[in-house]
């Protein structure tokens, strides 16, 4: 969104005011009171409110991830998965407040111009005027922060699912914190922070690359450092699937993610603009639905049975696919983008299993592969320059992969990354937490 560039100027002005400097640039109004009485104020209210509600919807996605991931893993690791998701939202929001937000939107405050922004804590003051933006942006500084903070933790959550059932809790917590604190804001600044990719004209509306491919390829790195779960890949190339323990939880997760995506994409309009937000709702829903259908039928043909978990992944694939161009493509293009994403994800999941990349929830395929596809789709359907789109998505994915690979490798050396075989067998719930997820019910042993 090119509007984004301008809003950082505004944001910066707001920031100055907040910080106690003289407020230089309220273009038209001299005081909050004046602005509130102006005809522009009601629109500002609506825009701001929509972003707050959208932030709430993106928050729902964290519950969606928590239930999806625990549904698709074994009951003996459920407490662990839930704990990680609780930790991620808490840590992610605070890390973003302490450093990430300012690092991702550095305005003029670059460590390395266009590449690495200088972070720092969000302001403390509650002064009203400073937080109000003038004629450029459509929301307050706080709204901006909370909306972006809800996005930030997402990257860590995507990784959480892929490395589930075998990663040491403490090590994961350290790794996730580093990635959210430092890694995610760096690539984020490249585009949304008006960095080098934005300057090249790269387009990633709501983050097919910046959020999803980032998370997916960081997840790939984590999985490669960790290795597969014991007992999944047998000798002779045979695969013994490790079944998720609750399809209702997984399904609840996907419906909640679908819901939250209305805020993820719809809020990324950064205003309540009627035409754009409603178009984004429609393209988002159509791509999700065609992604779901495509996965259902593709997996049905390949596997001979209608597979619920593939249908669920298909919906997510469609959603990830449309994220980069939800504002820029037409309705039937959205359907096409979703259809292709839904087919891609089925084959990507089968492919990663074949090369023994063990991803219990399909996060690499859904977020990584379809994140790239979605970004490229803007170059095909949405008016973006295909080569720049390619360059952008590969840069982001590669950075995420390398950054996470180094992070997890270092943690592996220092703290150890993987639980003992005995703990993996007995489950991380007992091993790491001394708690069971369902103490009233005895899980059956296969």
């Amino acid at each position, binding site marked *: 969104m090119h509007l984004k560039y301008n809003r950082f100027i505004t944001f910066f002005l707001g920031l100055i005011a907040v910080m106690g400097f003289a407020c230089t640039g309220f273009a038209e109004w001299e005081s909050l009171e004046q602005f509130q009485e102006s005809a522009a104020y009601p629109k500002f209210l609506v825009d701001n409110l929509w972003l707050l509600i959208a932030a709430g919807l993106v928050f729902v996605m964290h519950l969606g991830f928590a239930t999806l991931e625990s549904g698709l893993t074994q009951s003996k690791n459920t407490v662990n998965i839930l704990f990680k998701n609780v930790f991620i939202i808490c840590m992610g929001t605070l890390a973003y407040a302490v450093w990430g937000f300012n690092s991702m939107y550095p305005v003029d405050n670059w460590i390395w111009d266009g590449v690495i922004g200088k972070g720092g804590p969000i302001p403390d003051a509650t002064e009203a005027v400073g937080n109000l933006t003038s004629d450029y942006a459509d929301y307050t500084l706080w709204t901006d922060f909370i909306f972006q903070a809800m996005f930030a933790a997402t990257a860590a959550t995507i990784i959480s699912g892929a490395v589930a059932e075998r990663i040491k809790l403490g090590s994961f917590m350290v790794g996730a914190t580093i990635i959210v604190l430092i890694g995610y804001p760096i690539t984020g600044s490249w585009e949304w922070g008006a960095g080098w990719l934005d300057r090249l004209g790269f387009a990633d509306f709501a983050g097919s690359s910046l959020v999803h491919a980032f998370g997916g390829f960081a997840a790939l790195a984590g999985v490669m450092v960790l290795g597969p779960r014991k007992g999944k890949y047998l000798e002779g190339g045979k695969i*013994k*699937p490790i*079944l998720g323990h609750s399809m209702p939880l997984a399904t609840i997760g996907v419906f909640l993610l679908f819901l939250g995506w209305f805020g993820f994409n719809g809020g990324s309009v950064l205003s309540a603009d009627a035409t754009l937000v409603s178009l984004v709702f429609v393209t988002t829903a159509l791509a999700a639905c065609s992604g779901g259908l495509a996965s259902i039928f593709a997996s049905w043909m390949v596997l001979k049975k209608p597979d619920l978990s*593939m249908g669920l992944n298909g919906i997510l694939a469609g959603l990830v696919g449309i994220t980069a161009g939800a504002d820029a493509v037409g309705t039937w293009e959205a359907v096409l983008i979703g259809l292709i994403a839904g087919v891609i994800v089925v084959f990507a999941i089968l492919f990663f299993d074949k090369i023994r990349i063990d991803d219990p929830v399909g996060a690499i395929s859904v977020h990584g592969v379809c994140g790239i596809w979605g970004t490229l789709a803007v170059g095909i359907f949405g008016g973006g320059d295909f080569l720049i789109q390619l360059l952008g998505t590969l840069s982001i994915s590669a950075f995420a992969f390398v950054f996470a690979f180094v992070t997890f490798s270092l943690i592996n050396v220092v703290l150890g990354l993987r639980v003992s075989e005995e703990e993996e067998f007995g489950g991380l719930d007992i091993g790491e937490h001394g708690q069971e997820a369902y103490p009233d019910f005895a899980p059956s042993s296969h």
Partner: protein
Amino acid sequence: MKLISAIIKPFKLEEVKEALSEIGIEGMTVTEVKGFGRQKGHTEIYRGSEYTVDFLPKVKIEVAVSNDIAANTVATMVKAAKTGKIGDGKIFVTPLEDAVRIRTDERGESAI
């Protein structure tokens, strides 16, 4: 006395229970088990990988009976549990040396 254990298909439980009631057997203990035998399990698919579920759900009924009705009990169970299809299950008869009714301290045949 005999302890008769029958491993049957779960959906036959009700019928077997009623057949036993009809011949005057009023007590039994039921356990859910998994059976492995000639009846092969089915192939399932999860996210693209096939796997075989070998163990099939079965129900084990244990009944303690006096020697004189043991044969009839077995026959009754066989009749009620039979579908004629593979996997109908087995009945095992083991000797029972003593039985106690916890509530009354009764012993032996009067306890069952």
